[in-house]
């Protein structure tokens, strides 16, 4: 094998490795879950993730899956219920890097949730008393 051919083979191999490495890099480096801090005033309010049905009590730091959407319902006896939808924001850097894998990485990261960031990272809800309505 000539030197030029060997060089081309090496470049191709390196490119293929790079494409493989970029496949789903959001999943690898961004993680599948994200920690979200939930607080309320008054404290000890019940929080239900209406999309998963999981219940928490404030204050708490919860680990939420990034592959699904989440909406949090804060409630406490004597207070009005508050609903706070969380949003999933596409991280442009992962989307951009995934594009080098001709869309395969984008699909992997979108399905796993690695492509997204959950926002806001901290949710504080001040509950209003029912009598004050």
């Amino acid at each position, binding site marked *: 094998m000539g030197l030029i051919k060997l060089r081309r083979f090496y470049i191709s191999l390196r490119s293929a490795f790079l494409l493989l490495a970029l496949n789903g890099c959001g999943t690898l480096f961004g993680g599948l879950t994200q920690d979200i801090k939930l607080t309320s005033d008054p404290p000890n309010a019940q929080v239900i993730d209406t999309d998963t049905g999981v219940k928490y009590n404030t204050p708490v730091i919860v680990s939420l899956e990034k592959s699904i959407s989440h909406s949090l319902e804060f409630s406490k006896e004597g207070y009005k219920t508050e609903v706070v939808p969380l949003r999933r924001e596409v991280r442009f850097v992962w*989307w951009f890097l995934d594009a080098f894998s001709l869309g395969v990485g984008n699909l992997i990261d979108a399905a796993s949730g690695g492509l997204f960031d959950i926002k*806001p990272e*901290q*949710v504080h*809800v001040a509950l*209003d008393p029912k009598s004050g309505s």
Partner: protein
Amino acid sequence: MNHGKMKRYLSGFSLSVLVLMLYGCASANLSVVQAMAAKPASASLILIDNTGSKVSNEDIGNLKSAFSDSLQKAGVKIVSTENKDVAAIVGQIQQYDKGSKALRYFVGFGAGTGKMKTAWKVSDQTGGEIGSCNIDGSISMGVFGGDFYNVHEKAAEAFSQFFTGTK
């Protein structure tokens, strides 16, 4: 096309993409009516929908959460309205149109623009007004059309600057 021209073309293209991505992203304009006369350490937050129920409970929840989060980050404690010995922030949503994410993404050039107009008043424990401002937010572009909740965050940041006296 030679190498130099190609390089210039690519640089120009990248710059154009960057400008297009930044242009028209979520923004919020603060206009101060009465500058804050004091810097309260804690406050309660009330949001009133004056649009004729155009704003869903989820959207109000997200907007309140964005304001609470931004103020808490600025060192202001947000408490329940049952606390009467703190400052009271009352916000009125006067216009709320989330626009169309699909139009922003596929058409652009202002199509599908989302807009929000709000008015804010802050009063102290005695009920006396200590500050007021208007915040108008909009989004006309963004990654995949952008999320209108970005406008909530920008408006919250603007209010936080107003409340703490940094703007």
